């Protein structure tokens, strides 16, 4: 639409045509008392200087922001170029300036990569390089490709298109809303219409992960630690815009971690996980070892490691059973562990 065409439209007609504009118009308090069925041109004619000054309103600025918003949203919605089928890293250097010893590190949807290395070794920088879609312009000189191509700048700069979603232990819900209201708000911000079904799917996925179930009208701030984490994971899997999910350790308490990873990969996410817990690290398809600021090794999880994992899982299960037994007042016996 040209500027002239837009001016002939009313806010209401524009929202009907582009439902995503309702968020934009909600922020326009200069028109809060005006009739949204009138054309923009007519609305502008109603505004005197005092009204404009009160609301810090400027016609030219408004039109250019409206047009920006429509153009960006149209580019965003259903645009194939923003589907990520592959993310890859081309090597840079470590802190001593030595080149990283790999040709190309590839991440695909539905796969898990664990990241290991001591604190301060450069894990954060690696994740920051991915988030910033580095193009040889960070300390490490690494370059990130998306779908084997130079990424669109929008990945870097747009508020609506972030490559990486993050889940970490320090995160809490802070909004004063029920689970359903909260998910509806998130869905709305993602321009998902008809979110009812999706909300129910997220809640039931979260309930599968959490030990104790919660109801859709629990306040999010009243959820237990495990329930919050479960809801964050299910929501990130099913509703987050970002194709890459970074997990910074998931604590063992009150959540089924294996299922959590399955939900994320089941939704086509590329999962990166910083962890030193063998139970988690070995669930990954590959493992990156970081040392002295660089990627030191890339290890494919071996058949032996996979066998070991299933033994560790058995031991873990026994521990959990003993925990349950303890809780119910039982006396533990040696053969519970053997």
């Amino acid at each position: 639409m040209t500027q002239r065409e837009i001016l002939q439209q009313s806010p209401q007609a524009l929202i009907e045509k582009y439902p995503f504009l309702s968020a934009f118009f909600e922020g326009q308090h200069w028109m809060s008392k005006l009739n949204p069925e009138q054309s923009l041109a007519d609305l502008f004619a109603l505004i005197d200087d005092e009204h404009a000054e009160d609301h810090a309103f400027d016609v030219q600025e408004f039109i250019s922001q409206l047009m920006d918003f429509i153009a960006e949203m149209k580019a965003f919605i259903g645009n194939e170029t923003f589907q990520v089928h592959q993310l890859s890293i081309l090597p840079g250097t470590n802190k001593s300036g030595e080149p990283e010893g790999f040709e190309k590190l590839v991440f695909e949807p539905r796969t898990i990569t664990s990241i290991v290395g001591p604190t301060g070794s450069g894990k954060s920088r690696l994740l920051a390089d991915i988030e910033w879609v580095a193009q040889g312009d960070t300390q490490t000189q690494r370059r990130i490709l998306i779908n084997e191509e130079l990424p669109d700048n929008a990945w870097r700069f747009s508020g609506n298109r972030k490559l990486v979603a993050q889940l970490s232990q320090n995160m809490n819900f802070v909004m004063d809303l029920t689970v359903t209201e909260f998910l509806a708000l998130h869905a709305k911000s993602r321009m998902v219409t008809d979110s009812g079904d999706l909300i129910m799917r997220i809640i039931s996925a979260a309930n599968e992960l959490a030990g104790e179930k919660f109801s859709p009208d629990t306040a999010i701030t009243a959820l237990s630690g495990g329930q919050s984490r479960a809801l964050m994971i299910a929501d990130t899997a099913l509703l987050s815009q970002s194709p890459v999910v970074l997990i910074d350790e998931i604590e063992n308490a009150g959540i089924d971690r294996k299922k959590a990873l399955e939900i994320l990969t089941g939704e086509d996410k590329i999962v990166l996980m910083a962890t030193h817990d063998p139970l988690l690290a070995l669930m990954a398809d590959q493992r990156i070892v970081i040392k002295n600021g660089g990627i030191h090794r890339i290890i494919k999880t071996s058949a032996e490691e996979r066998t070991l994992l299933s033994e560790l899982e058995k031991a873990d299960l026994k521990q959990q059973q003993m925990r349950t037994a303890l809780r119910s007042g039982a006396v533990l016996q040696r053969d519970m562990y053997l």
Partner: protein
Amino acid sequence: MNLVTISGPPSSGKTAVILKAAENLKKRGLKVGAVKFDCLHTDDDLAYEKAGIPVKKGLSGSLCPDHYFVSNIEAVAAWGMEEGFDLLVSESAGLCNRCSPYIKEIKAVCVIDNLSGINTPRKIGPMLRMADIVVITKGDIVSQAEREVFAAGVYAVNPGAVIMHVNGLTGQGAYELSTLLFDERTKLDTLKGKKLRFSMPSALCSYCLGETRIGESYQMGNVRKMDIKNN
């Protein structure tokens, strides 16, 4: 010299973000200076000094801090050039939701935090709407969903801006921000003749000027009354 104006609600993380970004710029051998504008009190100058960043502070007292900013920024910029800074950062506490200290052709950054509430982006007016870069802080303590909802709220108010997440504590994102703050090709000679992005209202009623007494006879200047009957 480059000049960048940074504004945002109190405690949104402006000082923290500027310090982290400045650290990265100093590593590149660039000389960074700061000026802090506030109303009654600030300790930010101490934080800048401690980080080895030369700083000036201006307190507007009973005036709108943004009005005070415009009357003083030219002189402060001249100081910055005398000192030979590569980048002068001006930090203003966004206390007046109607004004904003942004100048045409001078990079404008708004810092806003994830904890400030979902309606904040809609409430804070030109300070957010007119910024070139919006920095969102405190993402480390809220959920991914809340970050996305908040960023979408910011985007709806200022779709043209670069929107970045920066952690003021760990500095995550600050290097990336620093690359946008300084541009070698930009050379500011003087602010004289430059214009504000948005006119500031003449909000000069007697209370702006320090009047404390209540009553019709003490009200002068630009005074407006509520319509109680038809409210």
